[in-house]
């Protein structure tokens, strides 16, 4: 890892980290980027494993979507995160793509990122000046841009330990059924108490602003409620209000605002059910 960061830091031209390559190689082949250096991190041991720890999960940066799906404990604890990562591409793409690459590609429509934000995930960054750990929401700063500095590599993603009666879910809207880019994405993570009252919630939206956004107002609409119709209406309204979308070839801004509320409501219902709510 040290060698890799050193190579990246020393390179004078354009340098890129390569994980699954499902973004990077596509951009390379279509002539969008002309790199001087590419550092493949897939052979670095620290990036290859999923570790179960007392305080949660540590997911190496090069772990693929398919590997996430095959990890029973992770899938049980964070079904929303895994289902979001598994929406990326197709079977073939799943064999290569990583959540870290999805995050560092910094697309507002990245599928795994809203789920990671709702999960309060953090990333461990290794660079020429050592290690640091920051929340996922601090990584993307603009479309295609991250806060990572020259020579820095994300080594792993950390997911916290789950309290009992917790659940998460991610839904995206695409006009087709697969091989498409989210027009809107919504992730919700909740924890309930024994009576079914929501004690903690996080809500994140994709493809409705320049970056994936965390929506604290939407979370607030759920906390302290039994996630009844009124609470879900408030959640949907807060999500719609948080949207700063554009009109583009993938959807009108009006459409995105409306559907963000609809998907957040549906995702919340699934998350609640997964948390054992009735």
């Amino acid at each position, binding site marked *: 890892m040290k060698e890799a960061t050193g190579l990246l830091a020393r390179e004078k031209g354009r340098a890129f980290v390569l994980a699954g390559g499902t973004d990077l190689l596509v951009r390379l082949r279509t*002539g969008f980027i002309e790199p001087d250096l590419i550092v493949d991190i897939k052979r670095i041991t620290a990036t290859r494993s999923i570790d179960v720890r007392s305080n949660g999960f540590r997911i190496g940066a090069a772990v693929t979507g398919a590997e996430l799906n095959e990890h029973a404990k992770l899938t049980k604890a964070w079904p929303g995160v895994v289902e979001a990562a598994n929406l990326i591409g197709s079977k073939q793409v799943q064999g290569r793509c990583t959540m870290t690459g999805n995050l560092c590609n910094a697309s507002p429509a990245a599928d795994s990122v809203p789920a990671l934000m709702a999960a309060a995930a953090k990333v461990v960054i290794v660079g020429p000046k050592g290690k640091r750990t920051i929340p996922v929401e601090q990584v993307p700063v603009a479309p295609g841009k991250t806060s990572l500095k020259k020579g820095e590599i994300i080594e792993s993603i950390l997911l916290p330990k789950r309290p009992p009666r917790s659940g998460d879910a991610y839904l995206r*809207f695409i*006009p*087709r*059924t*697969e*091989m*498409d*880019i989210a*027009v809107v994405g919504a992730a919700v993570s909740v924890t309930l108490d024994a009576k079914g009252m929501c004690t903690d919630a996080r809500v994140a939206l994709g493809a409705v602003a320049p970056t994936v956004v965390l929506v604290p107002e939407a979370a607030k609409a759920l906390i302290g409620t039994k996630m009844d119709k009124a609470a879900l209406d408030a959640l949907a309204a807060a999500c719609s209000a948080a949207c700063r979308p554009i009109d*583009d*070839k*993938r*959807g*009108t801004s*009006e*459409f995105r605002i*409306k*559907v963000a509320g*609809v*998907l957040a409501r549906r995702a919340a219902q699934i998350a609640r059910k997964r948390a054992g709510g009735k």
Partner: protein
Amino acid sequence: MPLDSTLQGKRDFKVVGTRPLRPDGIDKVTGRAKFGADATAPGMLVGRILRSPHAHARIKKIDTSKAEKLPGVKAIVTREDLPDHTDGDALLYDVLYNIMAREKALYEGHAVAAVAAVDTRTAREALKLIKVDYEVLPHVTDVDEAMKPGAPILHSTIFTDGLEPKPKKPSNVVRRYEFGHGDVEAGFKKADIIVERTFKTEATHQGYIEPHACLANVGPDGQGELWVCTQGHFMVRDTCARLLGMDISKLRVTASEIGGGFGGKTTVFIEPVALALSRKANRPVKVVMSREEVFKASGPTASTSIDVKIGVTKDGRITAADATLRYQGGAFAGSPVEFGAMSAFACYDLENARTIGYDVVTNRPKQAAYRAPGAPMAAFAVESVIEELARKVGMEPIDFRMKNAAREGTRSSYGPTYGPIGLLATLEKAKQHPHFKAPLSPNQGRGMACGFWFNFGGQTCVSLNVNSDGTVALSVGTPDIGGSRASMCLMAAEELGIPYDKVRAIVADTSALGYNDVTDGSRTTFATGMATILAARDAIKKLTARAAQIWGISAEAVTWEKGYAKPAGSNAGNFPPMSIAEIAAQAGATGGPIAGHHEYSADGAGVSFATHICDAEVDPETGATKIVRYTVLQDAGKAVHPSYVEGQFQGGAVQGIGWALNEEYIYGKDGRLQNAGFLDYRIPVCSDLPMIDTVILEIPNPGHPYGVRGVGETSIVPPLAAIANAVSAAAGVRLTSLPMSPPRILAALDRKAAAE
């Protein structure tokens, strides 16, 4: 050989109608098949094309001097290298102008220059070094906008044809067409109910998986060869030779395997450019389009704007039908509006009918054929109104259609009177189909529609050679885009009375056969098939003559039966039947090789009709649509290879589903295409689709010895309307614009809610 194409009653087929493996199948699934980009030649260069970034611009100057100096660049061609040899042929001049811009670039992606270099990197670098001085002009991409007074004019040479008096000012309307009969005004006076609506459809692309690709090789003696992925290599040869000022005999064109065409490969784009580069570089040059180039610079279909007005009596009889169709076909004349206007009302028996069509140019790539060109959009508009009228009259739409359906003896809205046709049969079968009565779930709706296509015959030439072991080599000149080699083998085997696997069909190059029209108009199984049958009969005549010679009896005394020559009767002589293999083995001693030929211009392509039923489910909160069930019922005349007929039915439906729901050319305000890739140009993926159910009807075409009708195009005519009718029923609001993408459906639902 008499041209005996008469139908032989209810014939008992031996191999026609079975489903053997296609001869090209194993090669295609194992990767051995050679497609357009798979050819190489020693010393081959890479050809790349520089394209206009502007939708409309005058090209003041092209400076290639820097690019020429780049090491590895072997040739650069511009408009200067493609002088006008078209000799007053306006259509050919448009082709020339389209493959390399002349005074103006007329759309984003219009070719401006081309480079041949030793490798891709050098070619790309060279393109960047070519300096083009553009004067950017105002542009127009929408058909209705292009027709307005004051719209930017593309060609100062277009003065609308078909208007009296001929206009004095140039316009973007190339021509006005009119078809019909009776008196529509009088017809509307007799109507109790009239529905009048306006529809819009966006341009779509055929979406073939294989991009255009070719390898050109022109020698210093002026003789050339071209390997190319195309639907018609004879067309490519003749067009390229004329554009380059070559004798046709000097150019030999071989068609590669083809990864889809659907009409989009019935013209030339890169081929003359590759030849010009090769001629100048004196080296082989390969040009392969990127997907982005395919979207921006090949031939998508027209976008349209259509008004339909139909009147009916209270008891459901149509009194008059009127439509005005406006189609933009890109930067040059030739949108398929004529076919749209001819086919719009072809399904109905009408006393008073009129269609008016306007062919319009805009700053978009020149359209090419797309499966039943022009008809799906017209059917969308007409069948939407038909469905609405049926509901207003209080009839089941299917009964309404049956009551007004065209039948044998009906004078069609485009002129001719129909012979035996299958429209009513498809409607009757639809009514009996389980799909028709299946229950619907909440948020689901059912729609149906009928569709028509003319079909085509055309110039065809086939050779059938009997090999020395009695197997048969069949050479056809129509590229196989839908399993036609299998169908040809079936027909030759049927006629000769030998097994299917004893016949091998190949698509021969242009030096081996006389001119063959392009594989289009659903013509190949009909026209090349009939030529194959007639070539086989020609060969049989020679085979029986050889047997007669061996037996020492007269040729008339020998008949052909199940692959054997036999004495016609007992008084002809008592000889044991002689097989094709036995006769072939002695060919050297009895007069040399045995072959059958047929060359003709095929007539009698029977029109074909279809009825489609579609169930759609609409999510009322997001506008997401799912096609949950789909059934195609179509008249095939005679299904030679039923699996490939079903494949054509399903393929048309699937392309229709894409067109109806998500596919569209999206232009920015700058006149540039926003979605030139399969990520944002959304063709359906497998998981978007239900299994498409098919029902083949066989109402024989009297113009073909086995009754075959073309089937490839009719299947894309009804889907736009059937799906629109289903989605409108599910959403509870009439949708009149395609594609019915989720934002459009949600907006329509919101308008409906606001109105309630």
